[in-house]
């Protein structure tokens, strides 16, 4: 047993041993749990993939004379922002697209520039065009604003992910006779491909499947800077079916994350266009797992072959909310490039980048080694397996006129 405080003291002295999630499973296999526990203090985990529930809150600074954009409207590079806040506080979501984007009217839509791309431009330091309309008040008389603006002009700008780090996910296929365009990529007809989206054994919530160390207040790598777990994420669903090792067999837990965009990097926040689906933002996240006891280490040493995911038909079952898996496959199979569904060989593609996730686990490791990053004690746990907390569908109710 050890504490986060003890680990931080070791980091301070330069004595802490930090391994990536890939390195630790090798170590545990080689030396056994007891020996490995004596050696490892921290395991770094990471994921990089499209996260639609991403956005930025920002404050533009007041104009002279003042304008109250709140209750009016605003765009950044023509992409609409949410202006239902105070005078010059705005929100921009990753999936927002310009009003004149043809969307899926020209099918499949290309969604070349949306909120995610604006966020990438902003974090890269590029000038954007801010346009705003307001109704004008006695104290905020101005009605129009059109100006260049970049990240340095903003007072505060924080990335906020209302849902990120999905713990496991579906493998998407298409059994119909025509190509479909989904958030899991273009799915070729008749099981032409199978797309998955998880960093698997590298993924934070698969390396801490029961949320023993990751909680509210956990300090993390977010988009190339430092962020925090601010809450559990939307659609958090810890009570799903799990394997004997406690690993969820479908999408389960999620995290809400927050961090200072000014400290982030365009390498880890990339605007993304899903053909026929929409614009989004790919986000890089890294989470350190303090190895406080042998249980935590055993979970962190998870391997791709231990984690299974359901194969879901996105041509009919997914849109109609039918959970009717065509089978389960593990991530070692998925990462091999070919899986078998019934008797068909199907080639796999991923939305989540292993190369990027590995890069993040290495960066986070270096930060800790360089004493730039200390582990934080979570202030509060997030609801776990036995909490009864679960995801519900919307029950529509008739409106009496």
């Amino acid at each position, binding site marked *: 047993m050890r504490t986060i405080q003890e680990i931080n003291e070791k980091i301070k002295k330069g004595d802490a041993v930090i391994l990536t999630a890939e390195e630790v499973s090798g170590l545990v296999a080689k030396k056994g749990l007891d020996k490995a526990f004596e050696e490892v203090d921290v395991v770094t985990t990471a994921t990089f993939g499209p996260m639609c529930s991403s956005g930025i809150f920002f404050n533009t600074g007041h104009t002279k004379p003042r304008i109250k954009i709140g209750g009016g409207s605003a765009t950044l590079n023509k992409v609409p922002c949410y202006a239902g806040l105070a005078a010059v506080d705005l929100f921009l979501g990753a999936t927002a697209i310009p009003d004149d984007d043809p969307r899926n009217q020209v099918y499949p839509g290309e969604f070349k520039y949306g909120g995610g791309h604006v966020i990438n431009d902003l974090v890269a330091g590029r000038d954007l065009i801010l346009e705003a309309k307001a109704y004008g008040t006695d104290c905020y008389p101005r009605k129009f604003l059109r100006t260049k603006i970049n990240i340095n002009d903003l007072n505060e700008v924080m990335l906020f992910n209302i849902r990120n780090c999905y713990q496991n996910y579906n493998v998407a296929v298409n059994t119909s006779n025509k190509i479909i365009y989904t958030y899991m990529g273009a799915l070729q007809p008749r099981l032409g491909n*199978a797309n998955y989206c998880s960093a698997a054994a590298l993924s934070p919530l698969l390396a801490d499947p029961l949320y023993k160390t990751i909680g509210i207040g956990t300090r993390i790598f977010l988009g190339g800077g430092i962020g925090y777990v601010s809450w559990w994420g939307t659609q958090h669903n810890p009570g799903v079916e799990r394997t004997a090792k406690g690993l969820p067999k479908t999408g389960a837990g999620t995290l809400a994350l927050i961090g200072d965009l000014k400290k982030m990097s365009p390498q880890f926040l990339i605007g*993304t266009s899903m053909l026929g689906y929409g614009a989004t933002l790919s986000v890089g996240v890294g989470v350190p797992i303090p190895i406080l006891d042998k249980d935590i280490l055993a979970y962190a040493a998870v391997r791709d072959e231990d984690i299974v995911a359901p194969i879901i038909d996105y041509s009919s079952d997914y849109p109609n909310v039918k959970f009717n898996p065509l089978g389960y496959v593990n991530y070692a199979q998925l990462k091999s490039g070919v899986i078998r569904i019934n008797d068909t060989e199907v080639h796999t593609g991923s939305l989540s980048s292993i190369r*990027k996730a590995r890069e993040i686990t290495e960066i986070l490791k270096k930060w800790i080694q360089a004493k730039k990053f200390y582990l934080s004690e979570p202030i509060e746990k997030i609801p776990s397996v036995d909490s009864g907390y679960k995801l519900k569908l919307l029950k529509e109710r008739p409106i009496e006129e």
Partner: protein
Amino acid sequence: MIQKAKIVLHFPKERVDKPIVSRLVKDFGLEVNILKAEVNPNEEGVMVLELSGKKEEYKKSLEYLKKEGLRVQPLSKDISMDRNKCVDCTVCVPCCPTDALERNPQTFEVKFIKEKCIACGICIRVCPYGAMTIEF
């Protein structure tokens, strides 16, 4: 003089139901080898053709195709991958009909093998990061 060339034809969706290839044979006496075709009703179509025939007739056939509203593009190593934009997600890999996009099983990096590419353009459309481009 006999001209032999590989071309990529892009059909706007309103031209997809017109018989175009047969006219190349009938009106211009060209020999046509269809290397790849993706033509569906109400969708933009792509066809990769190998044409051979008399040089003047070949030239005239290109003019005819352009007049019909088709985009004609020579097939000569014209797709390229921008390594700065590619994040190596691998979503393009199973979509490539000729295995010109390969995932390294160790590094998970995606490699583009130009020699195998027939410039069908599928990767350009499915890449979420705009890393695949066509160059003329």
